[in-house]
């Protein structure tokens, strides 16, 4: 039986979440079905979003950018995570963790802005390259930390033991480090995929004409175009896509995670 004091203590949190998060989502669903011009309920907005090739292309383009971001950040951060987890000790480990977590505290907008002037100076203008550099730059900490957290759980000296027993570098990476990194890799990939897929700031500031991904598309539909129906339907479609990909990844790799 649930205690009464517990219910009373949890109630304000639950009510606030219902009012501030769940009620607005009802409005989102409502407007995705409601045609303001004709005053009728319709599924046309959804049909439009999933059949119109313009929207579909933007979604696929955003997905491909997100997947590239995931793969690039993983490739770049796996060696860093391995170094921190396997070789750094005491003060050096704390220092490195502080160095790699601090960017978390600086907002994407500021980091993207800082990167923009630097890229401009070295001759990289707004476009696909600047967009990808911006994505990778901003998401590195989000992949690094989960991967580090999994590697830190490796039994101490396992690498030394393997080496003593005759394992080569390749064996150590493919049979010890990477298997231990898998849960963190999955968590980090899911996180980065989810966030980079719907990113708004980096494509807008760094992407130029190549920066028209789903984030800017929703921004244009809702705030610039006043097209609430399509904007709401698109927001729901990308939410469903994001959540589905997480659930599928979780189901598929559940055995690895446990």
């Amino acid at each position: 039986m649930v205690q009464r004091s517990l219910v009373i203590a949890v109630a304000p949190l639950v009510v606030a979440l219902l009012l501030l998060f769940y009620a607005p989502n009802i409005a989102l669903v409502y407007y995705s079905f409601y045609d303001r011009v004709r005053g009728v309920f319709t599924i046309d907005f959804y049909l439009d979003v999933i059949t119109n090739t313009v929207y579909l292309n933007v979604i696929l383009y955003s997905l491909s950018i997100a997947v590239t971001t995931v793969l690039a950040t993983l490739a770049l951060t796996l060696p860093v995570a391995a170094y921190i987890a396997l070789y750094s000790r005491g003060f050096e480990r704390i220092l490195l963790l502080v160095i790699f977590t601090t960017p978390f505290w600086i907002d994407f907008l500021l980091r993207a802005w800082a990167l923009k002037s630097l890229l401009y100076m070295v001759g990289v203008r707004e476009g696909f390259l600047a967009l990808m550099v911006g994505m990778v730059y901003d998401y590195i900490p989000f992949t690094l930390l989960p991967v580090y957290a999994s590697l830190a759980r490796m039994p101490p000296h396992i690498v030394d033991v393997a080496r003593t027993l005759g394992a080569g570098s390749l064996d150590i990476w493919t049979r010890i480090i990477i298997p231990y990194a898998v849960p963190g890799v999955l968590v980090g990939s899911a996180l980065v995929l989810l966030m980079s897929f719907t990113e708004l700031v980096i494509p807008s500031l760094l992407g130029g004409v190549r920066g028209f991904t789903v984030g800017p598309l929703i921004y244009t539909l809702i705030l610039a175009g006043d097209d609430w129906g399509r904007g709401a339907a698109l927001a729901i479609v990308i939410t469903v896509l994001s959540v589905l990909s997480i659930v599928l990844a979780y189901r598929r790799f559940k055995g690895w995670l446990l």
Partner: protein
Amino acid sequence: MSSKQLLRVYTYVIALLLYIPIAFMVISSFNSSPYIGVWEGFTTYWYQLLLRDSEAHIALVNSLTIAIVSSTLSVSTALLAALQVRGRRLTAVDALVYPPIVMPEVAEAVALFLAFTYLGVEKGWLTVMLGHTAFNLAFAYVTLTVSRVRFEELEDAARTLGAGRLQTFKDIILPLAMPGIVAALAITFLLSFTNFIKTLFTTGPGFYTLPILIWNRARRPGISEFASQNALNALATLVTLTALSIAVAYTAYMLRKAGR
């Protein structure tokens, strides 16, 4: 070079790369030339310009008041729950708390925009603050339930030794819950202070926070001297330093607690 040394060099190179753009921004904000990458000497001109920049002052006040109110509201609401939940996993509450963290921010922002529009609320300080509080509640609750906030053995000992309910709360429960509270306050304050996307969708004409001001100026550089490259670098540097000093203070606090 051994593989360990190789990994070490690589790690520090990546660490350096993470900070080069920020360092470049800070250095540029002291450059007397208005052109990017042309160093003409040291100046504090862009910072003096900020002193006369009334839009930046308004934005700063808005950002600060919203972050303070939103983090206080969300942490106290979440703390009330977390103190009674005591580290148990309440599936029903978890099921309500995680969606705000998982949902794409831009979709959540659209939802807030449509809800406020439907209600006919004038968009401004209140709508932005409530929008920030929606996800801050979730982050505060998760932070407070992940860190241990209750130590029942010590509370029982205090009660046995004659402490009343109030004294137990003041002298035992609150001090022991402090690391979790500080963490939750730091995280929610910064999430709100630097938030851009939700603010963009919940703000009305004429109301802006620092990130919104930086965004507006970054997209139309040069419409006024306040929006010139290095003036913007100076403003961005100050916001970054604010965030960094909170991060450093927070890390130092946590390390000291862990060291005990």
